[in-house]
């Protein structure tokens, strides 16, 4: 066998048969296996009572109470909803009441300052902090409505000392 031929090598190895265990040992195992205590009956799924009252009470009572609470809340909500005038129905139904024909987006600089800190490596680093106020304005000329939203914003920019 000059070149390695795995299949031929496997065949050569397979020619050898593993040694048989001692007869006394096989006998001992077969006796032990056949004298095992009576195994459980090979019945199908274990039979359970149709109504498991303790289980039903344990889960059924809280579940029933929760269901009753949900039903009450739903009924109250329905009653309140039906009692509202029709206009409020429309407003709460998600239909748009504002038709913005002009939208303005603006931002105002409020303040600015620098802060200094150290990185875990010990290197100092400077932060440039700026406070802004973002503003969005929607205008509905037909109805004469103006909606304005302002949101404060903090902008932090890390600056290395070398760069700074």
């Amino acid at each position, binding site marked *: 066998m000059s070149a390695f031929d795995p299949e031929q090598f496997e065949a050569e190895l397979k020619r*050898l*048969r593993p040694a048989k265990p001692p007869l006394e040992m096989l006998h*001992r195992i077969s006796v032990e296996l056949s004298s*095992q205590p009576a195994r459980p009956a090979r019945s199908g799924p274990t039979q359970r009572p149709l109504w498991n009252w303790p289980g039903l009470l344990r889960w059924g009572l809280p579940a029933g109470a929760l269901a009753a609470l949900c039903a009450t809340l739903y009924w109250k909500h329905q009653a309140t909803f039906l009692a509202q005038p029709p206009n409020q129905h429309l407003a709460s139904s998600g239909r748009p009441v504002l038709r913005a024909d002009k939208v303005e987006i603006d931002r105002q600089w409020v303040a600015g300052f620098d802060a200094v800190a150290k990185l875990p490596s010990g290197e100092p680093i400077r932060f440039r902090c700026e406070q802004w106020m973002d503003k969005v304005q929607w205008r509905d000329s037909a109805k004469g409505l103006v909606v304005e939203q302002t949101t404060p914003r903090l902008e932090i920019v890390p600056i290395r000392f070398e760069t700074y």
Partner: protein
Amino acid sequence: MDGWPTQQEWQAWLDDHGRKFLFFARQKARSDADAQDLMQEAIIEAARRNAWQGPPAPALVFATIHRRAIDWARREDRRAAREWAASEPQPGFWFDSSVEDRERATLIQEAMEKLPPIYREVIALKLWGGLTFAEIAESLDIPANTAASRYRYGLEELRKLTKAVFT
């Protein structure tokens, strides 16, 4: 099988599979006596795990031998490290061999003993246990690709170690 196997049926099943179980147990145990105990315990445990449906599948017995051997090693590591170091080489022959084949069988056994255990167990299960790579993977709790590559590397190692016989 109808009903619980009789002793004769168990004996026939052991005649069919016993030698490959013992061969694998020998790869995992520290001595021949340990290998026999390991095999016996594993067969009985596998029969129990088989929910008394009759003789268990060989792959289940191999897996049980593997797991039991790990348990034994963990349990005995602290207690028997000294005994292990002083233990004699396994005296038993791993293979049935005629007088002409005795030398070859001995050399292969010695070569197998020199192989890393992770190669040895896969080779034992594939060549003499008759398992597929998928079954080996399940028995040893490793991916099938790992089983296949360990087999290939192990076979190459074994071939190097037995060059004197197979040239």
